[in-house]
């Protein structure tokens, strides 16, 4: 066991897969010599050489499009896009080709590819560095979308993502890249994609979150406990394929659901979770499903960002309102 941050845990997962599988390649802007702007790929080029871990020219569409070609011809590329807001030049390749090749070729061409990028706000960043585009990617048929919230999960999910024969969008919560340290197995292990995790059992209300919002929810749970509210906290871990069973079972038990995420509220993963609560547990609901999510606005620059970011007291406020409904 070693104590790791999320950055180190992902680096460790890449290290393990690069070592055991010659078909794995890792590249992106600044991913080679520098080891990425967040140092997630640090040291890997030195260890595995410039042919397997390298800097690409600055072109996100090319990074993903060329990665698709590699994936179709025997490699397992793990490509890095530098920030959430810089993934959009690659959007055409992702939505038009990466997500479709398996279906288009009737299963002849699989796409064992991971597209990883840091996402989310709360770091006082410039524009395009604070976004949560999980709904954009989860809405595309043919993609898996994964978001870890802890170092342990980050490692296990990354290994599962690299081993997946389908393309995986792997979103890394940059705000907690180094904020959480945890004991992580040094050996290889994987966490199945598509399985949510109940991280705190409770009876009054189900709270579903993922990524950096888990930590905020855990703080809200302390406030809820003081107020005598028993919260069941679910870490979604995979956005798609979404784990309906875990969510439905929990909502049936508690009768209430509060969804916490940073992305804009409308047409979001939160909307999907509300649909699941309604479709799968309608007769058990004792209060309207509630979303505690970002405004339908651009994430403000640093001075306005505190309004936008979801805080523990705001989560608690909505938990309490939902329970008292």
């Amino acid at each position, binding site marked *: 066991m070693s104590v790791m941050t999320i950055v180190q845990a992902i680096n460790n997962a890449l290290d393990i897969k690069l070592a055991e599988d010659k078909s794995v390649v890792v590249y992106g*802007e600044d991913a080679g010599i520098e080891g990425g*702007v967040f140092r997630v790929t640090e040291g890997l080029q030195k260890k595995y050489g410039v042919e397997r871990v390298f800097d690409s020219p600055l072109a996100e569409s090319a990074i993903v499009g060329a990665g698709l070609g590699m994936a179709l011809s025997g490699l397992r590329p793990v490509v890095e896009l530098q920030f959430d807001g810089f993934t959009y030049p690659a959007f055409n390749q992702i939505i038009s080709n990466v997500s479709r090749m398996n279906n288009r070729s009737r299963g002849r061409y699989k796409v064992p590819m991971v597209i990883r990028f840091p996402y989310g706000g709360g770091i006082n960043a410039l524009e*395009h560095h604070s976004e949560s585009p999980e709904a954009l990617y989860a809405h595309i048929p043919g993609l898996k979308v994964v978001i870890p919230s802890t170092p342990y999960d980050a490692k296990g999910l990354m290994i599962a993502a690299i081993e997946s024969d389908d393309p995986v969008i792997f979103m890394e919560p940059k705000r907690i890249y180094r904020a959480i340290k945890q004991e992580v197995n040094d050996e290889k292990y994987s966490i199945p994609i598509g399985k949510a995790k109940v991280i705190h059992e409770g009876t009054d209300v189900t709270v579903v979150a993922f990524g950096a919002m888990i930590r905020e929810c855990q703080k809200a749970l302390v406030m809820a406990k003081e107020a005598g509210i028993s919260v069941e906290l679910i870490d979604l871990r995979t956005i798609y394929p979404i784990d309906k069973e875990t969510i439905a079972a929990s909502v049936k038990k508690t009768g209430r659901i509060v969804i916490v995420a940073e992305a804009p509220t409308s047409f979001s993963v939160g909307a999907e979770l509300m649909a699941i609560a309604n479709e799968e547990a309608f007769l058990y609901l004792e209060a309207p499903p509630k979303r505690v999510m970002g405004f*339908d606005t651009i994430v403000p620059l640093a001075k306005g960002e505190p309004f936008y970011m979801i805080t523990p007291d705001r989560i608690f406020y909505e938990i309490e309102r939902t329970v008292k409904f």
Partner: protein
Amino acid sequence: MIFNDFNPLEDKTFRIIDNDGKVINNELLPVLDDETVIKAYKAMLFARTADEMAISFQRQGRMYTYPPNNGQEALQIAAGMIMRENDWLVPAFRELGAMLAKGVSMKEIFLYYMGYEEGSNFKNANHVLPICVPIGSQLLHATGIAYSVKLQKKDEVVFPFIGDGGTSEGDFSEALNFASVWKVPVIFTIQNNQYAISVPVRSQTKSVNLAVKSVAFGLPGIKVDGNDFFAMYAAYKEAFEYSKAGNGPVLIEAYTYRKGAHTTSDDPTKYRAKEEELEWEKADPLKRLKKYMEGKGIWKENEEKLIEEYKLEVEKQFTEAENFRPYPLEDVFRYMYTDMPDDLKRQKADYEQFLKWKEIRK
């Protein structure tokens, strides 16, 4: 035409003064009176002073991530001197000198990097687009503006900027192609400062230089010593006359060096050698222009005193930015649409309810 004499296919670089400020190409030295040259140097010195202060304010935790401009002043000020009030500046995010020349204030620059969108609302600068972070995308906006200018028969020229890394983006090629096909007045500047964060230009392209990328799209291109104020000025002057006359777009590669970090979050020691930095120090654009002026005996100012004056001015603007009004909740919402949709009004009202609850709980 200078552009014909410096064929990028032959990897020629247009240069007028050397590192010692000596004129090596007298024939092409632009005709500028002493006063104008002194003014240019002062503008460069102001930009550098302001830039250095911005870095130090960032280090003091008084503003957020900032992209330094140190070393790239000559080309930016040269562009700034050519641009007229109605010409368009379409920046990426490392064009401080050009923005100041167009009338953007340091207060606005500071506001932006302190985290106020209001810093992109340039009160006294005409035709300057906000900083554009998605790499290369702004070149297409410039091309569209130029089409609009042409269609409306306006006397305006568009000046977009991009870095060396940005030339790898599809948008770069698409913008050059559109501008060339449409024959519109755009002067594309590539600030080739040798690095896209950590990636050196030799890993970015196998083209012999970046100006050569103009050839395939059928527009004139030239590689210019970007640290040579006179060469940059002469190239811009000619490009400006050419585009303004309706001949279409031009590509200028300003060959320069980012003396500092990519941003204040970056550490260049990870990817480049000290020796390289020292080598480029010899080509520093301010030192070169000053040596030229000293050689000609036209520089009589007390530079230290001048810097002190500039510092006071920058400090004053920084203080104004620091004392800017608190950020109201309203500002998160009010510029999303011309008329705020009801749903956004509700989201704002809900949040205000939460704030009230929070106040009571205190």
